[in-house]
Each structure stands twice: as C-alpha cells, then as structure tokens.
C-alpha cells in the first residue's frame, strides 16, 4: 500500500466529521430527572422515562438546551429560534423506546464554522500549500506566514439522547459474535448528547485531528462536557472519500468508526485514505459502508454495508412541543460565554507579548490557561510584572506540561505548584537570584517536597552570584588556566565559548550568573 504522501500525489481526500459529545457536566439526563454519573452500578440511574416504560413522557432539560446554544455560539453557528425534536425510529435493545429523540431538518445550531491554524509542515498538508503565496486563498484555505488557515464549515449541531450500553457475555473480548448473553445498562440511556456535523471541508487526517482538538478545547472551555475520548463522552465518526486531484465530483464515501483518540482519528483516516486509493488504482470500487478502525491491527474492517439509505421514519416528536427560543434566552446564554481558546491566545499575544506559538500552547489545556491567568494576576502586583509573562509561559509550557504528561491523571490544581509559588519562582529568575538552570531544579523540588521556592533556594544555598567582581576573578582564572583554548578561540573557533562558560560555571558550582559570565568572557577573550 502506498504512503499517504504518495497517495496525495494523485488523490485528494474529502473528509467530514460527525462528533458526538455527552453533556457530562449536567446534573440530570435529557428528558428525565435521573442523575448523570459515569461508572455507577448498572441500571441504578433509571426511571420510567429512560426505561421507556408504557405511558412515560419526556420533559426536556433546559440546562441541556443552554449547553447546546453555548456550543453553537462558540462555533459561530446561527441559533435557530424555532426548532423541533423528532423521533428516529429503529429497534435495538439499547434504545428502550425503540426510537431515539433527536432533531429534524432544523437543529438548534446551524451553519457555523471553525478556522484551523495548520502549520503545513506535514507532507500531506504541503499539497494544499505549495501552490499558494502568503495571503492567497484557494477554496477554504488561506496561506499564512507559517502555514495556512483552513475554514471548516459546520453544518449543524443538534440535540439528542444517548442510548444505553450493551455488554455481551460469553463471546471473545465482550464482542457480540459468539456471545451467549447480552446485558443492557440503561444508566447512559437518555444522556444529553450534542452531535456536530461538519461540511466535507477537511482534506487531510491532520486537519481532522486539529479540528477535533480545537472543538474539544472549546467544549472544555464552555464546561459542557468532560470530553473524555477514552470513556466515550467525546466520540468521532469520519466520512471519507477520494477524488483525483483537479476534479470536483465526490467519490463514494465510507464511514469510519471507533476512532477514540486523536491518534486513532488521524491513523484511521490515513489508513482508510490509503486503502481507498489502492482499491481505486487497482480498478476496484468503493462501497458505501461502515468500517471499524482496529488500532492494534492498524487497519479498517467492514462493519456493515449500506445498500440503501437507512429509513428511520423520522417524524416530529408529538410529546414535545416545538421549541421557541426567545432573544432573551439566547442573549442570556451569550452573556455566559467564557473567553474561548482563540480569544485567550490573541489576548496573551497582545497583552503580554507572547509569541503565537507560546500563546497557542498555553490555551491547549484549559487548566494551564487558567493557571497562567492566575499567575499573571498575581504578577500584576509586582513592579515589573510584565516581564514575568515569557518566563511564566516557558515554565508552564515546558516544565509543568512535561510534569503533567509524566503524571497522568493528576490535575494541575492538585499539585504543590500554586500560582503564588510559580510567580515566586519566576521572580527569582527575573531578579537574577537564580539561573534558569537552577530554576528547573527548584521546580522539581517544589513538586517533590511541596515547599516554597524561596525556602528551597535558601536551604540549598543556590543563590546565583551576580557580583561582577567575583565573576571577573573566576573568568580571569579560567582564561589563565587554558591558554591553548584561548588561542584556538582567538583563531576563530567561536564554539569554544561554551567550554569557557562551562568552566566558569563549574568553578562557581553552578551559581554564577550566565549572562554576566558570557558578557565578561566575550570582552576578555576578544
């Protein structure tokens, strides 16, 4: 099979995503008062409504409607004031009523978009980029200085309810094949779900991954879902088809499921694109079918073939009156919109002079962005608080992120690193009390010992020596002790400066101010 890069020489991929998010931060289910709780004993959060008992009726959860309107506003959607719930009729034991309550042709949120910053470094992305000059547009992409912006349309976001969860016993690995018993847990039945459908505007697996990441950041900022791809509260299906470069007609698409991580989303789509290319190049045809990404086997397998479109016999749900959202309601929700990741990044760049790279990394996780905001609020009380931004960003992007990655599952707020300690640590470097190298050691000590940075510096005698006289003496000693190196340096071997700095640092047990050492060495070696 060809690589993705090779495939893209001939083919263009057309990708659309369907992204389901459970509104896990709500207290109760979509149409009844049952509690939303992941991991409770099976069938303990159920009632006549979510069990579909005869005579039970749905009552919509107003907070869920607020959540979807928040999602719509944050993704540039038009909020439809008048919309209806529909019944999608199909029989399966995880759906107690044997119809799913969802929305019809008009959803609460319609016609939105997200703009993706793509660095364009990947091979697949280059095909989009090579033909364009900065500022030039082609279709939905605009070339920028360091990549391109992809404008991805959002068809709609609609509200629906989740099904229960099936567990199959007796077969292999919980699969239905060979199972002797199937159990259903209706705790999840009726969980409020919002489904976002994109336009077929994505062209590469990387763009799809970026879209999903960006959407996840937005939903987390809105606090409408915990967006756990592992636990299934954020799920993504992809529709993929290929067409020859330069043509516009759509090819036959396949629907890809089970992409429960960003990596799986990327790899599943990449595999499917390559598979389709191989089939097409061998003169075969693509069937409209649902395929399952198997990450361990690294391939997609057919789940079922769709010979005809499913007939869900959709019709307006008579138990729920048409929904009329008032301007007051929509404006009330708009007033609750938090600062979104893009806005936050722009603010960091504008107010604190951070690079767009730093700013984007800070907002990638809500926890780190919140932490940065908290730190900057504290730093604002310092005389030169503005100078704290860049070192704080570095601390968070490098040390804190690395620590969090190494300590999976730990929340930043629960670590020994309070905002006050972070600011104090940065203050020590800004004031040249410790070197940036020492700062890393202090950071590690804060996390290990749960102590204040000042105390750690004190206890370890780590204070940086910035006394020019003391440093000058050391510099003179080092120059005197290494005549050969001095000669080579003066002959043009600039790289030896590192050797001299290292020797000085060693002599000062790491406590010399590197800036001053560098300055003095440069002067004296000239």
């Amino acid at each position: 099979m060809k690589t993705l890069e090779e495939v893209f020489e001939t083919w263009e991929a057309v990708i659309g995503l369907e992204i389901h998010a459970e509104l896990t931060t709500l207290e109760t289910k979509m149409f009844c008062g049952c509690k939303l709780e992941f991991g409770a004993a099976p069938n303990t959060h159920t009632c006549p409504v979510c069990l579909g008992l005869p005579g039970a009726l749905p009552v919509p959860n107003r907070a869920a409607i607020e959540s979807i309107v928040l999602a719509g506003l944050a993704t540039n959607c038009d909020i439809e004031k008048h919309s209806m719930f529909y019944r999608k009729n199909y029989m399966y034991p995880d759906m107690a009523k044997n119809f799913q309550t969802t929305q019809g042709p008009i959803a609460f949120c319609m016609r939105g978009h997200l703009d993706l910053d793509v660095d364009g470094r990947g091979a697949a992305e280059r095909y989009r980029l090579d033909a364009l000059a900065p500022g030039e547009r082609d279709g939905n992409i605009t070339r920028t200085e360091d990549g391109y912006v992809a404008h991805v349309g959002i068809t709609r976001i609609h509200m629906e309810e989740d099904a229960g969860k099936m567990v199959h016993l007796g077969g292999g690995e919980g699969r239905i094949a060979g199972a002797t018993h199937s159990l259903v847990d209706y705790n999840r039945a009726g969980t409020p779900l919002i489904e976002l459908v994109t336009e077929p505007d994505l062209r590469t697996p990387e763009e799809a991954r970026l879209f999903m990441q960006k959407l996840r950041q937005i939903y987390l900022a809105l606090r409408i879902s915990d967006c756990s791809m592992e636990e299934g509260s954020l799920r993504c299906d992809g529709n993929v088809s290929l067409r020859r470069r330069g043509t516009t007609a759509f090819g036959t698409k396949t629907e890809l499921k089970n992409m429960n991580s960003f990596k799986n989303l990327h790899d599943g789509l990449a595999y499917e694109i390559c598979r389709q290319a191989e089939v097409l190049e061998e003169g075969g045809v693509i069937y409209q079918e649902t395929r399952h990404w198997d990450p361990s086997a690294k391939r997609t397998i057919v789940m079922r073939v769709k010979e005809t479109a499913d007939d869900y016999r959709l019709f307006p749900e008579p138990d729920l009156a048409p929904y009329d959202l008032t301007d007051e309601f929509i404006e009330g929700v708009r007033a609750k919109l938090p600062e979104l990741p893009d806005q936050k990044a722009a603010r960091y760049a504008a107010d604190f002079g951070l690079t767009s790279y730093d700013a984007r990394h800070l907002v990638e996780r809500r926890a780190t962005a919140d932490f940065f905001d908290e730190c900057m609020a504290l730093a604002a009380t310092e005389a030169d608080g503005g100078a704290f931004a860049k070192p704080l960003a570095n601390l968070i992007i490098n040390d804190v992120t690395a620590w969090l990655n190494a300590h999976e599952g730990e929340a930043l707020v629960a670590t020994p690193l309070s905002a006050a300690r972070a600011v104090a640590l940065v203050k020590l470097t800004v004031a040249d009390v410790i070197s940036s190298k020492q700062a890393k050691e202090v950071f590690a000590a804060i996390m290990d010992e749960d102590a204040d940075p000042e105390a750690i510096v004190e206890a370890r005698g780590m204070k940086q020596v910035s006394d020019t006289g003391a440093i000058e003496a050391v510099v003179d000693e080092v120059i005197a002790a290494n005549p050969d190196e001095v000669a080579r340096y003066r002959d043009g071997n600039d790289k030896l400066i590192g050797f001299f700095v290292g020797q000085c640092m060693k002599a000062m047990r790491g406590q010399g101010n590197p800036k001053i050492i560098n300055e003095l060495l440069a002067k004296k070696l000239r």
Partner: protein
Amino acid sequence: MATPFGSMSIGELQAGLAAKEFSAAEVARGTFERIEAADGVVHSFLETTEALALDAAARIDGAIAEGRLAEMGPLAGVPVGYKDNLNLTDTHTTCASNMLRDYVSPYTATCVERTLRAGALPIGKLNMDEFAFGGSTETSAFGPTRNPWDTERVPGGSSGGSAAAVAAGLVPVSLGSDTGGSIRQPGSFCGLVAVKPTYGVVSRYGVVAFGSSLDQVGPFARSVEDAALVLNAIAGRDALDCTSQPSDVDFTANLAEGVRGMKIGVVPAFLEAAGLAPEVRAKTQEAALALEKMGAELVEVELPHAQAAMSAYYVLGPCEAFSNLARFDSVRYGYCDPGHKDLGSQYEASRARGFGPEARRRIMLGSYLLSAGVYDTYYYPAQQVRTLITRDFAVAYESVDCILAPVAPRTAFKLGEIGDPTEMYLGDMFTISINIAGNGGMSVPVGLGADTGLPVGVQLIAPPFKDANMLRAAAALETVYGPAPVAPDYADGKVGA
C-alpha cells in the same frame, strides 16, 4: 334492596359518609361484592384492586372518625374505575393486550394519582379495545365487554369497560381515554355523561400512548356534576407532561347558569351526513331545540374541512401508534416468544403473537406511512389538513360558545355486527375532528332512540380550554333529560336480565 354504592352520585355517597350511614370500607366492600355479582356478563373489569381500595377507605374512615372528611378531597370515598391503559402502581396495566398480559406497573399515572389524592377508592382496571384501537371493545385480548342496556350489543369503545361499569351501576364514575372518540362514543352507546377535555387539560403522564398528539383522558359519569367533580380533580399542569396546561377553572361553577345568552353552533353538513341514523338525527335536532327553548341562540356554522378529518386521523394516528408501540419488543417486559436464537426473529414472533390483528394493522399502516417517499404523500398533507380543521373551528368559535353535533352515527350495534375495519372507523366520523383540532368534546345523554330504544348521546364541543362552556350547556340539557340512568336490567341493584 339498598341502592348499590355504584349507582349513587358522588353527592349521595359523600352525604352518606358524612352522616355515617355507611363507612368508606363498606363502600369499598359493597362495590366489590356488586362487581362480583353483576359484572359476569358485562365483563367491564379486568382486575379489581381490593387491597388498594380498602387501604384508601381506611384513611377516609379514620378522617371521618376525627371529623375531617372535608379535608380528604372532593372524591373522598368515591369508587373509581380506571381504563386499563392507565398505570397504577402494583396493578396490571395490560391495555387489553396479550403483549402486556403480565405487565405490572411500577408507577402511577398522574391522572390516577390525582383521583387518589382527591380521596377516591381505586376499584380496578377496566376493559378496552387492545391498546385503544377500536370502537367496540371487541378487540380486547381478554374478551369483549357487553353493553348493560342490551348485552347482545357492544358498549362502544375503546373505553367500553369504563362506560359499561358506570352504566351497570358498578361504580359511579370512571376514567377513560379518547384518541378519536373513545370516551364520547361509548358514552353515547351507554347513555352517560362522557367528557374528552381539551388536549392539555389532563396530564398524559402514565397513560399508555396511542396517538400522543390526540390522546386525552376524561371521566364517565351519570351526571354532569359528577363528571365536573372528577375533571376538577384530574385537570391541570403536570411537570411530567410538557403538553399539559395549567387549569384554574372550577368545572362545577357554572353548571346552574343555564344557556340563556349562549350561542350554540349547529353544523348542517353533520346532520345531512350519509350514514347518520334518523333516530340520532332526530335526537340531535330535538336537543338543539331544547337548548333554544331554554334561551340559547342557535347559529349555523360551517366546518368545511371536517370531512377530511377521518383521512388525516387514519394517517396521524397510526404513525404515532407505530412509534409509540415500538417499545413493546419482548426485551425488557411484555410477551416474549420463547426459543429464538436471534434478536430479529424474537422481535418478529413476539410482536406477531403479542399484538392482535387491529394493533398489527395500525402498526403496519404507520410504518408504511412514515417510510421514505411515502411520508411526503401522507403524513405531511395530514398535518396540513390538521391546521385547516383547527382553523375551521377557530373561525366557528368567533360566533359561537360551543357546537352541538351527533356523537356516533347510530346507537350501539351488536357484537360481531361490524367486521369490516373501515366501517368501524366510520363510527368516529363526528368525533375525530375534535381530537384533530384539540378541542374539548363530550357526550350528553338525551334519552333513547325512537327506532332502537337504545341510548343516544349528543355531542357538545367547546373551544380549546373553554371546556366549562360545554359542561354548562350539558347541565342545561340534563334539566330536560334528567341525569343518566343506570341501565334498566342493572338498576336498583339488579344484576342483569
């Protein structure tokens, strides 16, 4: 022989309790004894709920002993029967179907709960057409109910058990449900006051759904006042049914006002309808003249799209029913055909055997009408017809306070007499448009037909949420025709011919 409790009015029962002529426990026990004695042929009850009734009676008697009867609610000590599509905790809710033969409710419908809170004694569950599909109670999986006025005849349907139990003097009042005429038509066949309130007046929570946009629960009684008292108890907004509406009306308030000054609409096309029996036409005209004589002004109104109501109903009803009945799939509860190795065949066999022919017919019809390509031809136009009919009524109500019409085109027919489903459907020709438009409608007894000697009802139809208008006119007619009698063979404690 003493008057059976089930033949008394609510007022008589409560006066007797207050005067300690009898206790609530005696009312309960007496009622079950009477059902035991008199319901054999009629077969109105599918289940009786002795323990629940005696519990409720004990609470009433305790209150009476403490002089607190008045605090126990407007239905204190009143025996009430419930159509078997109304959930009542720990009782069967079978919908007269093999599908739910063994189904026991884990919760109580709001309308039932409200009668209990008003002090009612829950007597049991009443026979019906399977899942309310029918107009004769012959489609019950547990055998038909017979009309106490002539046990060779049907009581009407689908709430036939609810009607027959009141007509036979087993209980003073009962609850039924009406999707296309299922309260009013048996009310007419059994000579009772039978009210389908405006859609939204009574909560549908706990009412096993047939056509969700059409279903409404209402009372059967032998007097307008008793019906109004039950309505007072069950009406009003319910947080569990978002189509229910607040009700601050006392439905008994204007019963004595008479009809002077009221404008009552008559629809000439209804009286000229083919298939309307002359004795029913005569009774309807007679009732109109009686109202006019009491001071009402008769105004001719047109409902130009009413003839399309039947077609719209037999699209919308089955579509909603198809979806509502999808949950009966043998998996969690209900009839499960044994021995199947795959889900598809278990579904098919369980539903084929669990549902009777009329239920299967409506499910298949709805499944077809909602399918791709067909939906636009039927469902969508039917909704447009619905809008037109609703507008017709709105226009008519600009000039009248309520409308007088026939209920059923004829009096009760014999069991087995109507075999053709479409002929059975035509029996709803005067009642369906009221459900389509969501209005209130009721059947009021106006004596016996000249040709058959069987009860005839006329229908009073009220603008949405003006149900008090039709009750007021009905009370005026009652001054002419008297309250509904218990069927002669069951009057004065008799147990049938």
